[in-house]
């Protein structure tokens, strides 16, 4: 098991040098490879919470990424589907579409334009 975790840590982020990012990335990776398959596909969102966390940390850094991920984990509940066409960007792959770009509070772009056009049409 330890060997598997070590392989995951060093395989997933070969170019990453920030130790904190490596630790967070490894944690997410261990979850995705070992825990998530046991749990099954239970996330309400697309991308799933772990992918969201990974992307958010990758794009916006540890500080914002962690905040966005913890916020997302608290939003991942059964009420999410009720807001799919209001606060979220519609449905993608059968799940509520909520990419990290829509949740970064300093970014002006909140939703992909296609959704808006579809709504207008």
């Amino acid at each position: 098991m330890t060997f598997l975790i070590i392989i995951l840590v060093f395989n997933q982020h070969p170019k990453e040098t920030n130790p904190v990012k490596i630790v967070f990335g490894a944690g997410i990776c261990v979850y995705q490879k070992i825990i998530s398959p046991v749990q099954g596909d239970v996330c309400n969102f697309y991308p799933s919470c772990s992918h969201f966390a990974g992307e958010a940390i990758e794009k916006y850094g540890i500080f914002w990424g962690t905040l966005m991920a913890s916020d997302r984990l608290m939003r991942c509940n059964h009420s999410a589907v009720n807001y799919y066409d209001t606060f979220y960007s519609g449905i993608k792959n059968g799940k509520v579409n909520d990419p990290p770009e829509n949740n970064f509070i300093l970014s002006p772009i909140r939703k992909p334009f296609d959704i808006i056009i579809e709504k207008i049409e």
Partner: protein
Amino acid sequence: MMIYFLFLQSELFNPDQVLKFADYLYLQADFNSALNEYRRYLFLCDSNKQEVNEKIIDCLVRLKRYDEAIKSADYLSDTTAAVYTKSLIYLLKGDYPIVRELLKNMIDETKSKRLIGLSYAGEFNFLKAKEFIDIPHPLPKHKSPVIGGLFSLFPGGGHFYCQRVGDGIYSMLVITTGSLVSYYCYHQNEKTKFYISLGISIIFYAGNIYGGINAVHNYNYYENEKYREIIFNRGQ
């Protein structure tokens, strides 16, 4: 033999038949095939009919192939119509500053005023849009991110403030549970568990405050979007 067959089937290459078929496909909302037939018609006719070009642009816009539609607008014989069509396509594409750039020399005309107004509305600049078009009243009501953040000091408060009750309850439960676990571990003198649970609780609490502000942003965006939808529907 092949040439003989093609000769017999010459109806296939009759431009009028091709145009009829294209119109039929267009009415059936099969825009991809209709586009193909309209282009075939132009090739067979060896002409550049305005109406057919307009149909081609219409098909491309409906297929959301905006860049191709913009290129096709160059083939329109009427220059003014070409500028308006391009502006409309850029508006649908979401490139609002380009719309204004294209129409800056025709700012006095009613049609360009409408498009410029819609471009401002597209950017949620409703006050500026008001100078060019009639917009419905009242303007969308926004919530304050600062108040959202302050409400979030109480777990879930920011979500409640934005009418997201489910998220609010869930945030409250997660943070309360984390805090209770930390409290329990502290009283049991289990220091490692205490620090871990405290760390997790703090991260979730910070995430809750961030979420409160984010929820306000999303709420405001949605209100703007609803309002813009009303303006765009009126504009059509």
